[in-house]
């Protein structure tokens, strides 16, 4: 069995080697894309373009504006004199956010009334809008509590802030999002590469007719599949090492956890992804269809359902179950745990088992299909 498996693997290797152009593409694109996208994928929101419409022109409104500015998140790009202009500025995206101080602001405030400062935020990007809202609330809160302690003091009471909430951020104190996103890119690039490479491996033999030769040889289904997977596993492992190293040097992604665990996890992820491709290969009749199916299975699910771009907890329950169709989900949890948190096996052993089961089921399905086709 080992001999025949070995023979298939060697054959596959020779085929790959005979096409150096493809080998170059296989190494070149993943690294280039990791670097290119690594700069693009982040959710950081700063330098929010703010327009100010101040009808009040009072010390209170000026102090408020100052506190917005000093938060460091807002750039005041324009002072507005006419309320009609606000619409236009938001439409043209000159400002992302406009603040309106009503003309009776300080009058009401000192008459012990509650005053409202109006904000208009461009909500087209929901996430950015949420972050802006957060900053707005924080700036207002700081000012409010300042007035509150002043009030307490002026009433001759103990001037203090009752609760001092101290936030501590673990693993990533600067809250940079890029470090969190790079593992997602790694997962997405690896699954795309391995699915596309193997999706055609059986189909090509069918399309060119060489499958007949394999069928008449004493190679069994499982030997054929494993022999096909082996060379691509080595190839993809090299690519994985290359992109993780580039992530480290270009984006300073540290490997805080155990390197050996990282290796095992990458291996299991590749096992699952390659088998996904092999399975597609047994269904499709032409390389064209194999490619389309491979892309549909690997691209959008690994990016959108894996927790890379959209948080899984925010999805409806049913869709949360569906996220299990992509091995990228499990790998992402592991990769983030090893790279960012630096925690050990106890935090993600279950994910490793999922990956293994995922790959195994697909391998079994694929070998059943291959065996049936031969008869």
């Amino acid at each position: 069995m080992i001999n025949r498996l070995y023979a298939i693997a060697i054959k596959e290797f020779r085929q790959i080697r005979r096409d150096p152009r493809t080998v170059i593409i296989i190494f070149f694109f993943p690294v280039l894309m990791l670097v290119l996208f690594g700069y693009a994928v982040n959710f950081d929101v700063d330098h929010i373009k703010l327009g100010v419409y101040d009808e009040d022109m009072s010390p209170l409104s000026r102090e408020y504006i100052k506190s917005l500015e000093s938060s460091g998140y807002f750039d005041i790009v324009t002072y507005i004199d006419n309320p009609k202009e606000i619409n236009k500025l938001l439409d043209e995206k000159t400002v992302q956010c406009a603040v309106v101080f009503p003309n009776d602001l300080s009058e009401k405030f000192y008459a012990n009334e509650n005053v409202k400062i109006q904000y208009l935020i461009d909500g087209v990007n929901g996430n950015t809008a949420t972050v802006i809202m957060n900053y707005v609330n924080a700036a207002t809160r700081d000012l409010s509590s300042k007035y509150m302690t002043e009030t307490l003091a002026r009433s001759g009471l103990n001037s203090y802030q009752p609760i001092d909430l101290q936030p501590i951020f673990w693993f990533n104190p600067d809250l940079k999002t890029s470090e969190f996103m790079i593992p997602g890119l790694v997962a997405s690039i690896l699954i795309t590469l391995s699915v596309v490479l193997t999706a055609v491996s059986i189909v090509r033999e069918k399309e060119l007719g060489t499958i007949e030769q394999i069928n008449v040889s004493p190679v069994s289904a499982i030997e054929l599949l494993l022999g096909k997977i082996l060379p691509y596993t080595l190839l993809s492992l090299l690519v994985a090492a290359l992109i993780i190293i580039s992530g480290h040097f270009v984006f300073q992604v540290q490997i805080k956890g155990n390197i050996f665990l990282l290796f095992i996890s990458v291996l299991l992820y590749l096992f699952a992804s390659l088998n996904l491709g092999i399975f597609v290969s047994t269904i499709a009749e032409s390389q064209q269809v194999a490619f389309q199916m491979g892309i549909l299975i690997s691209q959008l699910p690994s990016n959108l359902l894996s927790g890379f771009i959209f948080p899984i907890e925010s999805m409806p329950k049913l869709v949360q179950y569906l996220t299990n169709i992509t091995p990228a989900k499990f790998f992402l949890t592991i990769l983030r745990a090893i790279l960012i948190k630096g925690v050990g096996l106890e935090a993600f052993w279950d994910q490793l088992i999922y990956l293994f089961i995922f790959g195994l089921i697909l391998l079994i399905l694929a070998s059943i299909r291959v065996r049936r086709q031969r008869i």
Partner: protein
Amino acid sequence: MKIIYNFVIKEFLQFKRDRRMFMTVIIAPVIQLIFLGYAANMDIKVIHTVVFDQDRTETSRNFIRSFESSGYFNIDYYVDNYSDLTKLIDKGDALVGIVIPTDFEKKIGAHRTVQVQTIYDGSDGNKAAISAGYSMGIAASFSQDIANEYLQTAGIKKSLSGTIEPEVRVWYNPDLTTRVYMLPSIVGLIIMLVTTSLTSLAIVKEREIGTMEQLIVTPIKSYQIIAGKLVPFTILGFLSASIVISVMRFWFDIPIKGSVVFLFFSAFLFMLSTLGLGLFISTIAKTQVQAMITSAFAVIMPMIFLSGFAFPIENMPILIQYVTYLVPLRYFIVILRGIILKGIGLNELWPQVTALLIFGTSILLLSSLRFRKKLE
């Protein structure tokens, strides 16, 4: 014309022979849009929280309850030691840990500042920052209540000043549901996936299987082959596009505020670019595998990450922002969001429409120039 027509018929016959092709062009996009439509949600509404309450008094329970009643925090775990809290955050089961000190009630009663630790799993910077914002807000209003009570018990009926509150209005998308904002772009993504994956193998396939030789010896011109390949793909692309747009409209109930005709016209322009890119790859690749890898990495992935679909372009470094001008989906997403969400038309969207037109025609021109009826 007759020649092109015959060629188109040949291509369609080939499609018909492979039923799975129809699956991937028609059924798969619908399934994808439905799943992804529900998944595409960046709203952070469920924050898994662990509480380590060392005080266990009425006041500390009230404080915890104010987190729960905010609607954002789910208190999933109560622990009685620090290491359990650490484990839950390490494993990712809890995003936030609240540590209430033993003297919480005592200090509040004595009108002294009490420090409450909140620990966040910072690995997702975005989520951590937003949840920190929520918890600071909750703590601030809890503080405010205590201070007001303090003033009242001290016999001061009225405070010297009112309070300031921001009143936030969000435009275009008042409920801040990311789905409304994301769905039009997912429609664009799916149209792109279907069309690019269709054409990127079109020419190289004939070459690899050997049927290119037959095309070469037939009296048919290069441009006729290109046109004959493009027409069926455009029709399939349109079919796919109309289906996903209908799913968006009727399944997710997102009305198209602008002109439907204009929407389809711009979808056509967008398809010129994606079909053109696919065709271009097909003419430069030597094997189908090469074409697949090139289109997956150099066309499909940039469309996902550099189009502004999920990651705002204005946050990217300037150099990368220039690269995004080469991504046709960038323009199409602006058009889609403009027509569907804002109801604007050609008056506002002409720059994007022109960009797509120029991109599409030049890439198609380039690939017909590259395509030669000869064997290597």
